[in-house]
């Protein structure tokens, strides 16, 4: 309560003395005028009334100056006019100066911004996300979430980043405020306990900060999902231990995608596509070469890549400048990969691929260019540390590039769009790559101009899918093919795909159209964005679901008559 009123309080406290000075100056000047002896036009002694005096002071004090009214002033009145001019003008200057200095006071400006921010957050009436950290990752997350029409509340402790945020345009409201995200009270101020807070995204560059945010969010709002970035594996494990919805480790994610690229080309295409920003393209079918790789840089990314390649029994030669790193494999070439000699020493001429994973983007680019000059058939993969170097990497055309911000944002966004996608990917790991190819073919028959589908997680329960529940209750059989049926033209299939059916612990990929659905089933449905409204209607509106199932319109009164004596006849459906 005291926090909320602080701006008004601060204003009045600071304005108290200027206002009192102003009132005193005016009253002294007014009284003085009524006491000064004057004469009227006929020369009779005359004195101003309080009203006349206040009138004169009012126009004198504001420097308007109508002249001497109602009668010409006597010397005594003129003397007092001079006194009151200086008195009131100085009082005005003093109070206006106080107001201006108060407005410019950083503490006051901060309090004003805080009040505006709190008001904005309090007035949300639709699901929003709370984003902590506005670096590369944060910016991508905010942009994508606003594209998905979710308002975002951004907090970051760097004023410059929040200022940059305020001049960008977003499609949904994005409110930024500069404060320390590690303090629980700040997260609360940013709407952590607001009933519309759907999720908290901890995307700062500091693992400790992300961990603190994740813990705070978990404890103070059980209902909102927590998505966090963790660079250290130990921090990631720590976060997973307290039920964080999704933890992304950029190095792990990079290696995971690289592994898919090397082992499961179609799954890689699907994964890379669905886990990048919604306007991303489907990558071409990768054709990774077999043979020896050269890995430049043995930092966090390099080490993870090295472990993965060794697991795949791929031969790797490491180039690393810093010989003090623990766990450097034998045969490591000391030096920088940017120099041709070093690359030659690592045998670049008869290697099949080069991996540039140093912490410096210019080095990585230089490595790619130099290596390609020595051996133009190389398969090139690189880490783009900063999002701003994206265009350079794009121009250098490596076969695979991972940008930590994009990796994190893409993964978190795909999780937000449908939590079942993670199940889908986990299940795809266990089956042949052909399934991934078929799945990709179904949702993107034309990979060159494919648009990312809209994902729906349909849960067959009374609360989440009332229409389907109602149909089931009335004895209708619901099959997977229901979702593909055209509402008015029987026999016509709409391009809606049921990608996965989860029943208990069993995740069935691409279930057969004739599969009967049971209560409690969860379905991952992909449909073109244009059909999203229809899909929603099918799940929520009894009339729409009934029509899709039977091909007949639902006449409420007729049906009610039929319903009350007995259940509607499931046998009566049109084919």
């Amino acid at each position, binding site marked *: 309560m*005291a926090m909320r009123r602080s701006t*008004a309080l601060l204003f*009045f*406290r600071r304005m*108290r003395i200027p206002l009192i000075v102003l*009132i005193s100056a005016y*009253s002294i000047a007014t009284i003085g005028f009524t006491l000064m002896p004057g004469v009227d036009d006929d020369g009779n002694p005359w004195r101003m*009334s*309080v009203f006349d005096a206040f009138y004169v002071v009012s126009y004198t004090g504001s420097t308007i100056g109508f002249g001497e009214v109602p009668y010409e002033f006597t010397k005594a009145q003129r003397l007092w006019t001079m006194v009151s001019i200086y008195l009131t003008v100085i009082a005005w200057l003093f109070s206006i100066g106080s107001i201006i200095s108060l407005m410019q006071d950083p503490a006051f400006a901060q309090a004003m911004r805080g009040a505006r921010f709190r008001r904005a957050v309090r007035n949300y009436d639709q699901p929003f996300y709370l984003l902590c950290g506005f670096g590369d990752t944060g910016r991508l997350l905010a942009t994508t979430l606003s594209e998905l029409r979710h308002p975002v509340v951004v907090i970051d402790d760097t004023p410059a980043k929040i200022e940059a945020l305020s001049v960008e345009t977003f499609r949904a409201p994005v409110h930024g405020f500069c404060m320390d995200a590690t303090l629980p009270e700040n997260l609360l101020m940013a709407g952590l306990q607001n009933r519309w807070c759907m999720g908290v995204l901890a995307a700062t560059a500091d693992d400790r900060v992300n961990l603190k945010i994740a813990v705070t969010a978990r404890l103070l709002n059980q209902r909102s999902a927590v998505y966090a970035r963790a660079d250290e594996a130990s921090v990631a494990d720590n976060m997973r231990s307290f039920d964080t919805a999704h933890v992304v480790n950029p190095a792990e994610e990079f290696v995971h995608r690289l592994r898919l690229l090397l082992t499961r080309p179609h799954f890689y295409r699907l994964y890379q596509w669905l886990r990048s920003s919604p306007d991303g393209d489907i990558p071409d079918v990768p054709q990774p070469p077999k043979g020896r790789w050269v890995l430049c840089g043995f930092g966090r990314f390099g080490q993870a890549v090295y472990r993965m390649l060794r697991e795949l029994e791929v031969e790797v030669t490491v180039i690393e400048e810093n010989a003090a790193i623990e766990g450097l494999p034998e045969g490591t070439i000391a030096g920088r990969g940017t120099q041709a000699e070093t690359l030659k020493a690592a045998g670049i001429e008869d290697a099949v691929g080069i991996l540039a994973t140093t912490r410096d983007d210019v080095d990585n680019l230089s490595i790619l260019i130099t290596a390609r000059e020595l051996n133009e058939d190389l398969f090139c993969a690189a880490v783009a540390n900063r999002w701003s170097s994206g265009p350079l990497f794009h121009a250098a055309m490596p076969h695979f590039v991972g940008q930590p911000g994009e990796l994190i944002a893409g993964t978190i966004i795909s999780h937000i769009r449908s939590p079942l996608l993670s199940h889908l990917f986990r299940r795809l790991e266990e089956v042949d790559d052909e399934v991934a190819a078929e799945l990709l073919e179904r949702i993107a028959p034309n990979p060159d101009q494919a648009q990312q589908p809209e994902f729906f997680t349909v849960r067959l329960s009374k609360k989440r899918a009332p229409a389907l529940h109602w149909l089931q209750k009335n004895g209708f059989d619901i099959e997977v093919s229901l979702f593909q049926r055209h509402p008015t033209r029987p026999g016509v299939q709409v391009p809606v795909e049921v990608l996965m059916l989860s029943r208990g612990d069993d995740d069935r990929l691409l279930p057969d159209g004739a599969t009967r659905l049971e209560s409690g089933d969860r379905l991952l449905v992909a449909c073109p964005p244009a059909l999203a409204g229809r899909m929603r209607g099918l799940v929520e509106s009894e009339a729409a679901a009934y029509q899709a199932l039977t091909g007949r319109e639902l006449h409420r009164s007729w049906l009610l008559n039929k319903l009350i004596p007995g259940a509607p006849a499931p046998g009566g459906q049109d084919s």
Partner: protein
Amino acid sequence: MNMSKVIFGFFVLLALTLNFGFFLGEIDNPAHHNVYELFAALIVGLIATIMKLGERSQMSAMLLASSLVVDLHLLAAVIVWVLSVHVLEVGLTPAVMASIVSLSGGALLANLLSVVLLTMETAGFSR
């Protein structure tokens, strides 16, 4: 002794006494009610209001409210005075004087409440 408390109490009390001074006398006799006293009561009332702005305690909310009532009453009285004497030029007839004084009587009550509240708060504080 807290100097700011003294000043605060001074203004609240002065607003009451000036108001009382103006109110005292026959209700419709202009000779008993001085225009300067009304003016002073209004000015001191305004200053007291500003002093109360920005105070935090629960009691101060009530103090501020009563102060605003005082200002409203006295402003109304002043407006009646100005209208009848300078604009409509009917002069201070007994009817006009009576309405001015009765308005200031309302302000007097609110001022009294202010002083009572302030005394209560001070008494509660010292306990």
